[in-house]
């Protein structure tokens, strides 16, 4: 029986971790995501599902604990906000290099540096283009509601294990902090060690007599075999295109298209409804996955609209991908606020009207 609750985005994520049969969560406090570890500690899942919950000495330790648990085939997760996610980048690169599944939540805030604790979308490049060192990509989901903060947890784990690749939920302080009604999915039990060993034959759970030893590493000193490994990763990222998800609102007859994700998409949804009331044919495309990115669909829509407006709570990061997708067919405009400031729907609509 599904349960409906009024929750913060961060709490919904934490509750979803328990319900998704997560084996371990490793965290470190940072605003605006501290409710994740607070909620888990209050729920004591270690007494119910046996899930390990640990407040670590640093974000660096937390992501490396994820690496250790993931290397043994466990469902592991960590969360942080922008500065803490920067600290995790080395570990994320190692996870990708060693092909380990893990879930990382970024409840992003304004920056650079210590920046602000207010929401921002300025970590798009970091999430989608690599972030850490080396050639790798993450599977990136961008929730735009508290409901999606919960629902994306099992989805992210599924994709992470399917491709043996870390997955990131790129949220922000708006989605993490706001409260909404959320329908919680039915709990999925944690897997037994036997199930893990069956599903993850690569896991380091102890060498059995019937198999060779398992080694989790991202090291290969021979350049030719390292190149082969990276090419294998590339093939994996190409296959991951099958996981593309996006949502369209009023795009059928749209003359003007807005492309926005996460909290911005939520705000732009309102822009569309106000614009429609005023007789302006505005549509919205919301990328749900940021990697893979809906290049093809945006390119198709570029054939039908007069121009495209990208809005982000940043100086403009996803707009570069939209421009790549559009291939110069129509003008691509950008409207952004940054540093923790947030635009209103009217503000965006006023900007859009200057481009008609």
């Amino acid at each position, binding site marked *: 029986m599904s349960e409906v609750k009024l929750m913060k985005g961060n709490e919904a994520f934490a509750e979803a971790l328990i319900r998704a049969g997560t084996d371990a969560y490793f965290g470190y406090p940072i605003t605006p995501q501290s409710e994740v570890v607070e909620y888990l500690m209050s729920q004591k899942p270690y007494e119910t599902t046996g899930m390990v919950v640990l407040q670590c000495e640093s974000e660096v330790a937390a992501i*490396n604990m994820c*690496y*250790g648990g993931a*290397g*043994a085939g466990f469902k592991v997760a960590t969360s942080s906000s922008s500065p803490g996610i920067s600290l995790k980048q080395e570990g994320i690169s190692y996870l990708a290099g060693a092909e380990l599944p893990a879930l990382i939540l970024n409840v992003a805030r304004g920056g650079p540096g210590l920046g602000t604790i207010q929401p921002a979308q300025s970590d798009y490049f970091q999430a989608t283009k690599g972030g850490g060192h080396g050639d790798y990509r993450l599977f990136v989901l961008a929730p735009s509601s508290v409901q999606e903060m919960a629902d994306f947890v099992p989805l992210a784990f599924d994709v992470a294990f399917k491709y043996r690749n870390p997955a990131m939920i790129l949220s922000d302080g708006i989605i993490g902090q706001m409260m909404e009604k959320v329908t919680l999915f039915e709990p999925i039990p944690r897997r037994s*060690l036997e199930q893990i060993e069956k599903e993850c034959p690569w896991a380091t759970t*102890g060498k059995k007599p019937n198999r060779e030893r398992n*080694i989790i590493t991202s090291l290969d000193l021979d350049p030719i075999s390292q190149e082969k490994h990276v090419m294998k990763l590339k093939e994996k990222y190409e296959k991951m295109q099958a996981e593309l998800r996006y949502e369209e609102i009023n795009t059928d007859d749209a003359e003007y298209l807005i492309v926005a994700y996460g909290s911005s998409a939520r705000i732009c949804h309102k822009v569309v409804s106000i614009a429609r009331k005023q007789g302006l044919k505005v549509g919205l495309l919301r990328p749900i996955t940021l990697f893979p990115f809906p290049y093809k669909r945006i390119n198709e829509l570029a054939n039908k609209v007069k121009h495209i407006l990208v809005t982000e709570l940043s100086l403009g990061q996803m707009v570069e991908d939209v421009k790549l997708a559009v291939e110069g067919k129509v003008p691509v405009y950008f409207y952004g606020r940054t540093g923790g400031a947030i635009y209103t729907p009217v503000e965006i609509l006023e900007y859009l009207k200057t481009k008609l």
Partner: protein
Amino acid sequence: MITYKDIIKPENLVYRRTPLLTQKTLSFCPGCGHGTVHRLIMEVVEEMNIQQDTIGIAPVGCSVLAYEFMDIDMQQAAHGRATALATALSRLMPNKYVFTYQGDGDLAAIGTAETIHACNRGENFIIIFINNGIYGMTGGQMAPTTIPDMITTTSPYGRDTKIMGNPLKITELVAQLPGTCYVTRQSVHTPNNVRKTKKAIRNAFEYIKQKKGTCFIEVVSNCPSGWRMTPLQANKWMEENMFKHYPLGDLKVPSNENVKQ
């Protein structure tokens, strides 16, 4: 007349290479202590019959290739982070034996926070700490444990503690933490010391079985290549200089128990 065929019989066997070491030739420099410690760990795992339940962690440094030589499941960690990996593994699989195998740069410089916090939480795994006072793999740079006046490529006139700081006695430090149950300092430069180190490793695995908390074994070792010495010179120099700063022996043993040495 007695021939070799009369001697090579199972009942006469006094020593053999443990099958838990892989067939791969060790890539360590001549005289290096790493190979000996690798062997001792694998001998203990074999003797306790726990190959199926043992997971090792090799981080960055000369220890990084340990998984090439140990026939057990292993993970390679980012520089300094071995005890973070071990924390997750031992908590998720509390009935397994988890150990890290770390050098001084890894454990006592870049990984200091992870080392201290894992020991302070009393995580149930073994830390094997090879201290040769130098960064071996990168070519002999000064380490956190480099002793005063010791020459390295980044202290070419000797470690001047006024400028470069003091060697960190991290073993003494972790011995003070409530989470550690067994802290000892050993060496592998003589047969007698090899036997003592093996006993210490065995003790540690037994304590892990009893879930007593973090076991920390420092092995003061050499680095003939990094120290620019022959293996014999290196061992002599180690005895005369390293042991003054890093005296051998137990720093902490589980309460109400005397460890036999």
